[in-house]
């Protein structure tokens, strides 16, 4: 003889038991399988240090990384096609350094925001961008300008930049101009690439040579007159000896390892529905004196 109230009570308890069982199953599933995130990293010519950072973060956050680069720099169309493909393969998050910011901006604005996108270096104005891990290129230019002013305040400065100035390079240049102007140092811009660089370009009066692109450092060290002071931003492995020997008077450096690590960390946190901090890089001055001091030592000679 079960009353109506008791029937309801029993039905309620049965539902409760069902819910509790589901909770147990859900919790067990969560505990038994550590979630592996699939994150696609679409960046422009990543350095080895950046890749090392990615690898470290991938280990720490259990990420399956798909590193994708375009065949040639600035190929926004190809990057867009790659991004479409990655989104179709159910990536949990994307790390994106836009090859063509405008194109990517337009493409992303059409997307629903279900896949978190972490922008690297180049910011994109789009609702739903989950985080930005960047290098403040303007600040980098300012630091270079300050370094020039500190090391070679009396000589005119030849700013050496790539032939094509993307937004990042333009920001560096603007920052550098601002610092030089403030220090009263005359400057001139030389846009060239490694192949087009000749000794004749530097044959005039002594200069301070300031390189805005780390890829131009090595050829410059070979071609520039020994009397010229070479300063720059970034580093590649080949210039460490030049730095040690004093051929390069100073570099404004940042840890690409950190950038790689933080980019993937941010993407993994976004995929796990957590909020990463927006992080900008920290810059350090590396020269023959400081290159074996922490943290520059770890930046220039990362422990593998």
């Amino acid at each position, binding site marked *: 003889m079960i009353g109506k109230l008791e029937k309801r*009570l029993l039905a309620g308890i049965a539902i*409760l*038991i069902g819910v509790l069982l589901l909770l147990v199953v859900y919790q067990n599933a969560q505990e038994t399988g550590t979630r592996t995130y699939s994150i696609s990293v679409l960046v422009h010519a990543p350095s080895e240090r950046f890749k090392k950072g990615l690898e*470290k973060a991938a280990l720490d956050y259990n990420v399956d990384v798909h590193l994708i680069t375009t065949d040639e720099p600035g190929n926004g169309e190809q990057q867009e096609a790659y991004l479409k493909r990655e989104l179709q393969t159910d990536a949990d998050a994307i790390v994106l350094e836009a090859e063509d910011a405008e194109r990517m901006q337009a493409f992303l604005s059409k997307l629903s925001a279900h896949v978190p996108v972490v922008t690297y270096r180049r910011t994109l104005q789009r609702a739903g961008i989950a985080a930005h891990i960047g290098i403040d290129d303007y600040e980098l230019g300012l630091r270079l300008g300050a370094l020039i002013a500190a090391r070679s305040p009396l000589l005119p400065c030849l700013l050496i930049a790539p032939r094509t100035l993307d937004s990042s390079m333009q920001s560096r240049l603007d920052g550098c101009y601002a610092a030089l102007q403030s220090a009263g140092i005359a400057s001139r811009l030389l846009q060239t690439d490694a192949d087009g660089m000749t000794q004749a370009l530097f044959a005039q009066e002594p200069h301070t040579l300031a390189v805005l692109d780390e890829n131009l450092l090595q050829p410059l060290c070979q071609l520039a007159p020994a009397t010229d002071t070479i300063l720059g931003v970034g580093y590649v492995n080949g210039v460490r000896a030049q730095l040690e020997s004093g051929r390069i008077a100073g570099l404004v450096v940042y840890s690409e390892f*950190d950038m790689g*690590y933080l980019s993937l960390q941010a993407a993994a946190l976004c995929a796990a529905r957590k909020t990463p901090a927006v992080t900008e890089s920290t810059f350090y001055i590396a020269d023959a004196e400081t290159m074996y001091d922490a*943290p520059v030592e*770890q930046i220039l*000679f990362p422990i593998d």
Partner: protein
Amino acid sequence: MKETHVFARVARRIASTYNRGSIRYVIFVSFTMIALFAIVLTGGTFYARFSSQLENTLYGENQMLVEQVTQSLNAYLRNMRWISDTISYRAVKNRDVPSVEANESLLLLYEANTNYIRNIGVYNDAGELLAIAPPALLRENVDVTQEEWFTRALHQSENQHFSMPSVQNLYMDAGTGTKTQYNWIVSLSSYIEITQNKSVRRGVLLIDLRYDALAELFENVALSNEGYVYLIDTDGTILYHPHHQLISSGLMQEANMDLASLRDGEYTQQIRGEECAVIVRKVGYTGWSVVGVIPHRGLMMGGGQNILFVLIILALYFAIIIVVNAYVSNKITDPISQLELSMQKLEKNIAGAEVYVGGSHEIRHLGRTIQQMVNQLKKLTDDIVAEQAQKQKSELNALQAQINPHFLYNTLDILVWMIEKQQPEDALKIVSALGRFFRLSLSKGKNIITVQDELEHVRNYLMIQQMRYKNKFTYTIEAEEGTLELSSIKLVLQPLVENAIYHGIEFMNEGEGTIDIRAYLRQGDLYLSVRDNGLGMPKETVARLLTEHVPVSIGSGIGLKNVHERIMLYFGEGYGVEIHSELDEGTLILLHLPAIPYAEAEKYDRKA
């Protein structure tokens, strides 16, 4: 105060509800509360016990891992010191340095230990590089006498000295004269005595150990729940850390400086906002410390997830126990409820109720016992009813037996008188009436007769009484159509008529008395009425007539109450006798009977 009052009131209310609740409710609530208490107690005890055991086990495993790393590191460092000693004694001591033999010995020892060693260099006390393996050049403008490893080796000659990890920056490639390799090393420097140009002088042996060989000891060690192991020197400076790069950049914080002064042991530290267990093991000789860091959530069952899991399981058990309790309490109390229900039915109608017999042995026994009691009660009631009916019947029969001789004696007197007066026709009428009267009185032993027979019976009686009372009264007998074949109880009119004659008319003058007898139907029921114009009765007497046996001095002696009870006995309480009487006006007595055709009256007769 007010709150206490409210709590007391709520407690009283709960206690009252509990005490007044059904047996099922009490069983259910009691079992559930006991189960809840048992679950909480058992769950809590086991949880505390197992979490403590698990914590100890995990902690022990992690301690063992840190211990193993420490032992491996000790072995590694011992090995390095042994290599240093070997180089010192076999390659350098008692040999002129530089010399081909010394260089070859050095190279041999280097090649035998390339997995651990980057470079081996022998310096004299002036900082001059005398021998090196593999071949390399000392960088220009480098003054090793200013290097810490050099001065420490010379000043603390009894010890071997390990440096901090750093990028090797002393040597250049022997072939190119440039620096192409930038390797992380840990330098082991020690004081040696060298023979240079046949003279013994002080020197320093520098062995650059591969940092990656040292790091390998730590790299694949994973402690519980993202725990890790790292190495610090006596100042707390990190020698190895799985996140060395991030710590160096300031992107990650470590509590290394706080741990430098700690001895071997286990500690708790807040690291990056999280409480962590820290295991510290000192490394012999160097004073370095191997530090194991395990977030507490990885050691304890008390993590949010685990507590939630235990609570879910306990809640699940509790829910299941509630269902089982509901089933068990229902199983136990359902037969009692059934029994109670049948008792309720029994209260309403003892005759038709069946007592529930079911459930457990005790309840079945109880049901059977109650059923037996009910059966006995019913039997006793039936017996009492039958006894009462028999008693009434016996009483009637006894009264009838009393009147008949009296009535017969009076009638025979009349007959004698009529015969003496030579009135044979009248005597014949009386004899005939008397015969019919007695025949109808007997009615073959039936108690239910037709209205026609009852009227005929009373007609014969009145005829005889009219002769006896010398026409002191007149009478009429009328019956509506359809009433004659209806049923009546035998001898219900005769006592009324007898009462009317004896109490109403006997004292009246000749021909003044009237007795009117009628049979009629009203609202589907049969009414037999006896109306006289006699003396009538006061209301008090009328009131007593149906409740008390009013003794009659003469006549049949059958009271109105007897007639009333007999009608009710046969046909139920809705029927009986009504009396309407006015002093000096007369009396009307109504017999209210159901209109039952005589053919259907057999069952009522059997009842009698």
